[in-house]
């Protein structure tokens, strides 16, 4: 990465072939942010409302839940694993928190209950995957149906209502800044520090890059994987609490399909599904890109059918760019 001084320098002097590779290098470094800026410019041209302060706060508020999920699952994906149970674990934690809120009237108890459930699901996911050597896709798929079943069983299929002050978390603001956005900001910083400034973070990259080599150098990959799933579970729980508080009711059917939005954000943000690489900043920009696209499509009243197609195309383009820039880089190294 550090051996590319000419990447941003003088593309005019080099041949067209290698300037393509330079583009790849630039894209790898600044691609997602360029795409984000591009989409924002496009959005502000398409709709005069887009750049208003009210709308931007709106977008921020809307991306909180998926961004929280995406931060947690970034660790999992860097490890070369996957978690498809995010949406239903979110619903389980959120509904448990909501019902504790309805029973006790205490926000603190509600949050503690929700986060505890998140930690438990994280431990179960991580333990089964590492102890029984089960592919994480299969285990978390199982967790998807178990968690959804558990939340339906718990609520009998009806939403939990009568939540009192609970909606402060998702709807309240301190000054002009929504509380949910503050929660996200704190957890993004925590995630970033964990991944970039701690031994745990370095081990996550090492295990994701090459599990055998990591093991040979004295790292215990299983413990790293379990810890990552626990952290991911905590973020799922916070996401669930924010969502349920935002809609002011515990919805057992909530969060369906959110795992795909979160994984999309991570991939659009430049993290490779192969593991080993990825950043929290990329993930957050990825989530913002998706949030802005959702927002602008709604502002322009684009029909739901087209919205689905457009979102699918964006994922495809992001993955193609990922693969293409990577192959350009390896060609350059050779």
């Amino acid at each position, binding site marked *: 990465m550090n051996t590319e001084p000419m990447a941003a320098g003088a593309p005019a002097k080099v041949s067209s072939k290698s300037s393509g590779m330079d583009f790849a290098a630039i894209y790898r470094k600044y691609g997602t942010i360029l795409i984000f800026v591009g989409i924002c410019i496009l959005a502000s041209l398409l*709709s005069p*409302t887009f750049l*208003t302060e*009210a*709308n931007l706060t*709106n977008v921020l*508020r*809307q991306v909180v*839940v998926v961004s929280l999920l995406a931060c947690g699952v970034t660790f999992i994906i860097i490890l070369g694993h996957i978690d498809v149970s995010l949406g239903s674990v979110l619903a389980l934690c959120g509904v448990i928190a909501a019902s504790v809120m309805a029973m006790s009237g205490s926000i603190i108890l509600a949050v503690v209950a929700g986060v505890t459930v998140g930690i438990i699901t994280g431990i179960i996911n991580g333990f089964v995957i590492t102890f029984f050597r089960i592919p994480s896709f299969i285990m978390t798929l199982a967790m998807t149906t178990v968690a*959804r079943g558990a939340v*339906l069983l718990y609520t*009998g*299929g*009806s*939403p939990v*209502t009568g939540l009192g002050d609970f*909606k402060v978390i998702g*709807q309240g603001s301190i000054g002009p800044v929504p509380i949910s956005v503050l929660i996200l900001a704190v957890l993004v910083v925590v995630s970033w520090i964990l991944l970039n400034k701690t031994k745990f973070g370095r081990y996550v990259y090492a295990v994701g890059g090459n599990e055998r080599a990591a093991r040979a150098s004295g790292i215990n990959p299983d413990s790293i994987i379990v810890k990552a799933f626990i952290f991911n579970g905590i973020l799922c729980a916070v996401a669930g609490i924010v*969502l349920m508080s*935002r*809609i*002011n*009711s515990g*919805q*057992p*059917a*909530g*969060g*369906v399909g959110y795992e795909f939005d979160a994984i999309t954000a991570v991939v659009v943000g430049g993290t490779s599904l192969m593991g080993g690489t990825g950043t929290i900043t990329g993930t957050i920009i990825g989530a913002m890109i998706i949030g802005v696209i*959702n*927002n602008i499509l*709604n*502002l322009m*009243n684009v*029909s*739901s*059918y087209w919205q689905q197609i457009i979102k699918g195309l964006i994922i495809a383009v992001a993955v193609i760019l990922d693969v293409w820039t990577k192959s350009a880089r390896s060609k350059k190294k050779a």
Partner: protein
Amino acid sequence: MKMIAKLALACAVSAAALSASAAFAADKFVVGYANMADTDVFVMARKNAFIEAAKSDPDVDIKFTDANNDASKQLDQIDNLIAQKVNVILVVPVDYEGIVPGVEKANEAGIPVIALGIQSAGGKYTFVGSKNIDAGKMQAEYMKANLPKDAQILYLQGTPGLYHSQERLKGFEDNLGRPDVKILANLSGNYDRAEGMKVTEDWIQSFPKFDAIIAANDQMALGAREALQGADRLKGVMISGVDGVPDALNAIKAGEMSQTIFQNAGGQAKAAFEVVESIKKGETPPAEKLVPFESITKDNVDQYMKK
């Protein structure tokens, strides 16, 4: 080889289970209840009401399946019910068209079919429920009478591609009958509270003024209420939903919603059970047994809250 052995074992076990339940079914009148999705609040309330109604007859046994909104899964489940030789199949179709092969198969097997809540596009069956087009019509009638002149309104559509979403929208559009009223936008909130809220938040940004949000169910209507409240725009905006869930009734009572269309879960379940009983007695079931929707507004909300 190992895989084949495992498969064979699985087949043997399920065959044994099937024959065991068939033997068990011999002394009782068995209803196969193929539900659309246990995650759906209304559908679940109706299922519970049916269980309650069925308690009156100890000779009736119910087998439940849950298709989780997947039409092809529901067809498999109906196949299983036919294989178990249940006496009646009661289905809440995931899809109007998608259910037809299941109904036809049951017809061939000589098992009477009751479609609960949603019709089937084909086959022979008894429809028990309310006509979704009427829900849209009742919303339209309320809006027609109460909207100010040159009103601007928004429609929150149910999950696209589902028959009842289309019917509710069509019922609304066909009966509004107010050329001065402009429908500013029509987007889907997938019957989900969070999505209804998100779409409404975006609308609040796009449209400086609107007079009503018509939602295809109460969850989206309640999501719209949260968004409007959050932006301090609730005043002067009428919100209408469908289902009559307790939360919506409370919102109407508090003046935060204008209308909901009550789909009588208990009434439908009771009517469906009456059809089951008549089939049990050997009578020919009717082609349909309608349980009309009821419009709830602040004028009559009290009588529904007692229920």
